[in-house]
């Protein structure tokens, strides 16, 4: 490149008016082995820019995804437990020992009714002593007679 152009570019460069393309030309020119002696001072500047373009970031960045606890799964679990509970309960309640055959059912019913009456009779027989009580109460009837007698006496006095 013509020296004159470089000098013009440098002036533009210092005023911040060069385009990126023109700056690239300057960088190319100053990366040569030999440049004009009076432009020698620019060389380290452009060399520095070029070297610094290559510096890299090598540190590892840990990209952890935050574990957000999802509360909606708790409700899902709760519903599941509830359903399981209802299911188990209904299966237990269904088995009431219902007898399908009417004849066996009749026998069973009479058997259990018989048992009820037997135990009922046993209960009433123990209540037999209440009759003794009635007997005692009837012997106390003579007290009425006494009262009658006394009432007659009191009437006479009056």
């Amino acid at each position, binding site marked *: 490149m013509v020296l004159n152009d470089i000098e013009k570019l440098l002036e533009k460069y210092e005023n911040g008016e060069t385009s990126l393309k023109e*700056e690239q030309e300057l960088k190319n020119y100053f990366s040569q082995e030999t440049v004009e002696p009076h432009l020698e001072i620019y*060389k380290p500047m452009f060399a520095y820019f070029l070297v*610094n373009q290559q*510096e890299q970031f090598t*540190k590892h*960045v840990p990209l952890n995804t935050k574990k957000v606890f999802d509360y909606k799964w708790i409700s899902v679990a709760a519903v599941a437990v509830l359903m399981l509970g209802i299911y188990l309960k209904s299966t237990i309640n269904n088995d009431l020992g219902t007898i399908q055959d009417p004849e066996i059912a009749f026998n069973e019913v009479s058997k259990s009714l018989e048992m009820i009456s037997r135990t009922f009779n046993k209960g009433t027989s123990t209540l037999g002593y209440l009759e003794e009580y009635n007997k005692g109460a009837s012997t106390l009837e003579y007290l009425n007679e006494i009262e009658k007698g006394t009432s007659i006496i009191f009437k006479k006095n009056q």
Partner: protein
Amino acid sequence: MTQKEFLNIVMPFKDKVFRLAKRLLISTEEAEDATQEVLMKLWNNKEKIEDYKNVEAFSMTMTKNFCFDKLKSKQSQNLKIVHSNYEDNNTSLQKQVELNDSVHWVSRIIEELPEQQRMVIQLRDIEEYDLDEIANMLDMNNTAVRANLSRARKTIREKLTNTHSYGIK
């Protein structure tokens, strides 16, 4: 958005984020932390990433703001870090740069520039962004970017000339 999709978006400019952070914070370790922080923030907001018009420009702005916050908090802690004598023994790149002493001078000179000019130089001469893009990233107008750029370039050239002539004398 999966991790892979995210990396595809972020990969092309993560080095640029790092270099801008380093330009502002000087120290490589701090720049690495800042880059990590910026990328993590992007990752955590990955749902919104599709809404951004320009993720790269957005990230650069984020980096700038993050680094400014860091620098401010450092000042408020009364811990004055003198950047110009910070010794970075980490990268082989630095050694490579130091092989050429005058190239090392350039980095010293840039470190002494005001933050605005440093950023503009970084984004223009190293990352080669458009002036409008830089204006967008730094919340400045086009003319201000140009003025900062021009001032920074002139300062670098003047200081280089000075050190150069001192070297001869």
